[in-house]
């Protein structure tokens, strides 16, 4: 018996290695950040840059992939970075545990 899982994707950001937002789209966003889109992109990129630096210092062991995702009480942020520095960021609801393959698919197709 196949169960159909309802998953919600809120939005998707794609950044290049310099922090420029190459693509943004939202499908199901209920709350805006309260700042302009330009500022939001900068804040998002800055947060991810800081999280990556934080994780590389905090990590007790050597990492291969590094930061994968984080979750709050209401959403989950998935992160995928290519070797060329392209960053894919997707916010979903909490039911999605692993969107890495999806992001990799978006990158390679």
């Amino acid at each position: 018996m196949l169960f159909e899982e309802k998953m919600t994707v809120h939005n998707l950001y794609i950044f290049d290695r310099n922090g420029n937002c190459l693509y943004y789209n939202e499908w199901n966003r209920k709350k805006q950040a309260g700042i302009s889109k330009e500022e939001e992109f900068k804040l998002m990129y800055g947060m991810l840059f800081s999280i990556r630096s934080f994780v590389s210092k905090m990590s007790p062991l050597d990492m291969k992939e590094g930061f994968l995702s984080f979750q709050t009480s209401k959403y989950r942020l998935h992160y995928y970075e290519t070797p060329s520095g392209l960053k894919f960021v997707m916010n979903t609801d909490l039911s999605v545990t692993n969107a890495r393959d999806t992001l990799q698919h978006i990158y390679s197709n």
Partner: protein
Amino acid sequence: MSGRKEVHPCESPLDNLYMRKLVLSAGQDATAKMVIFSVYVVNKAGGLIYQYDNYVPRAEAEKTFSYPLDLVLKHHDEKVVVSFGQRDGIRVGHAVLSINGVDVIGKNTADGKDILEYLKDASNYPVSIRFGRARLSSNEKLMLASMFHSLFAIGSQLSPEVGSSGIEMLETDVFKLHCFQTLTGIKFIVLADPRQSGIDALLRKIYEIYSDFALKNPFYSLEMPIRCELFDQNLKSALEVAEKAGNFGAGS
């Protein structure tokens, strides 16, 4: 290549079975051992008030080198780190931990000589250097805790959903960071193995221990560093219980 089984010279086929079982269970124990790496407590303002390292696995490699050194080293954050030349367990980002068995002090050897200068001199070779992940200094831990405090808040601000909390769980391929923020703004942060279960219960338990042994301590001031012996003791035993419980959970 696959399917090659090591045949142990045994008395009877039954012995062989017993030995295989032993090896299997030992292997299972090794992979099932899950640990809680560390605990951080951050106050309302983002300052670190308590830190405990339960288990710090150190990936280290000690090798003897001859002149010239084929690794490229550089100064970074008052340490000497590998910049290029990753090989044999020595990764980029690993720091020089000791030279010829003697621990280094920051950028200098124990004698006070600059490490890079020392390693440029051919007369000092062959030299034995130990590389590994550098331990975090207290200052670095303070900075990282404050950094997380801010990231926690930004996670809430950038939420596409209404009423989101800050970052409650952050996942990497090597560890998982869990954070519980109390109603008074104190954050309890636990770094653990990604497969470890029961961390939510552990975070609540640490909150309980904080209330019982720090807050109820008449000599403890709010938002200040926690220096209460009973807090340390109870925290350690709570971690032990959580590790054991987590192991059972994963095995079944």
